[in-house]
């Protein structure tokens, strides 16, 4: 995370060689990526960019997904099977024969994610995945990344959405003016007032509530970070108070 122009997108572009670093070396799976082409690196690192309309061009959604797998060594049957799997996984089956340009913003984004996921990269990089998504789509997205994590994939995400990150993402890296200014567990990084301000973010609401409650004398335990924990704690607190 970090303010606009901090270098987040530039950093993720270096991962599959779209931009080559002027100084320093990038290692992917312990191998130097300077010697590999973009096509080779893209098999390991799948980047999903902000604007899905930048990559949709086929006549039908099915072709769109098939195009992504063209350069992988797969037989026709394998490609067809994979396409069917992906389409049903993303609930896009009913649009199979439709043009990708008729999709809504959220669905287009879903399709853009599908075109990368079908390539089975080990590292999946999202640029602003929650932007312009409704609650249901974000929920679907969460399930999707959980599913990928269960398969042992690495997921990197660029986002401005503090609440989403605080609730769901275990590790946060903050950037500012082209430098990494913090890297650690989300609960620690995003509750640090100084760091958060430097990255042009705001403190998560749960943390602000915690501070506010403490100010009026309610001792909230330190380990409450999630919304549901906070609700449970407050319910408990009120019950105890009524009993007293």
């Amino acid at each position, binding site marked *: 995370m970090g303010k606009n122009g901090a270098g987040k997108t530039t950093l993720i572009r270096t991962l599959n060689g779209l931009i080559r670093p002027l100084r320093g070396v990038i290692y992917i799976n312990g191998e130097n990526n300077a010697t590999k082409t973009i096509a080779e690196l893209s098999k390991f690192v799948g980047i999903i960019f902000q604007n899905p309309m930048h990559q949709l*061009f086929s006549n039908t959604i099915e072709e769109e997904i098939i195009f992504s797998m063209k*350069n992988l060594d797969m037989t026709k049957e394998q490609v067809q099977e994979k396409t069917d799997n992906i389409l049903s996984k993303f609930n896009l089956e009913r649009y199979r024969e439709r043009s990708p340009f008729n999709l809504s913003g959220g669905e287009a984004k879903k399709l*853009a994610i599908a075109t990368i996921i079908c390539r089975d990269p080990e590292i999946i990089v999202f640029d602003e995945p929650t932007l312009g998504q409704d609650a249901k789509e974000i929920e679907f997205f969460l399930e999707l990344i959980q599913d990928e994590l269960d398969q042992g994939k690495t997921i990197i995400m660029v986002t401005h959405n503090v609440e989403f990150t605080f609730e769901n993402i275990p590790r946060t890296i903050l950037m500012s003016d082209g430098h990494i200014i913090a890297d650690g567990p989300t609960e620690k990084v995003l509750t640090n007032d100084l760091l958060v301000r430097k990255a042009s973010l705001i403190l998560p609401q749960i943390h602000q509530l915690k501070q506010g409650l403490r100010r009026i004398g309610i001792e909230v335990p330190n380990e409450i970070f999630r919304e549901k924990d906070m609700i449970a704690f407050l319910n408990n607190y009120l019950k105890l108070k009524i009993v007293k």
Partner: protein
Amino acid sequence: MSFEFLNAFKFLKKQTLIHRLDPRVKLLFAIIYTINALMFTEIMPLLFIFFTLLPFILIGKLFKQWIKSIRSLSFLYVFIIIINTLFITNNGFSFSIAMIIRITIMISAFSLFFLTVDPNDLALSLISMKIPYEIAFSFSLAFRFVPTIAIEAQNIIDSQQSRGYEMQKKGIISQVRNLFPLLVPLIIGSIKRAFNVAEALESRAFGSKKERTFYFTINYTIIDWIITVILMILLLGFIFIRFDLLIVPEWFSWSLPV
């Protein structure tokens, strides 16, 4: 693939004599230098035209950007040299050098124009030539969107490459087919943006009045007239040389032996 050469056409605000000139003078400048360059096919006169152009670049403090734009077009130069030397049997290399100077002059003249003319003034100068505001405005809007489209093209290339798209392919047909994944999103994006821009303009009451007034005005000053006269003299001089009305020394039609 890089779009760096488009930087040659990006306006930068600076305080120099060239920047303060009336946009119409600079348009005249670009046109006259293009005509001059197109009149000759020999190295010497083209070089001479090129040297008359250099002071303008230096006065405008544009040397760095100019070098950058020339460098990014070097692939074009290589192309010109190879094609001309191969296909023109008589003094092909000499001719290709002349063509390179010619194209350098034209690019320099136009990049000087776009580097020093504020897009807003461009519309104004067109209106002062009795061109309707709608047309003048869309003209300046087109220039404003050149860098935007360049950035978008780069984004499209990046997103397609991330899903295994390969830029280089063998064979002309597959190369043309290979352009579809880039061109389709670019064209559709441009059309969509055009609609968005139109809506944004209309929501700000574009075209609600027939007669427009302008916040900034442009006018021809003494310096503008002086430059205009200089340009005219240059043009006339080169026309005289071209049609042998002026006696020029022998070396003026010199060319490389190959």
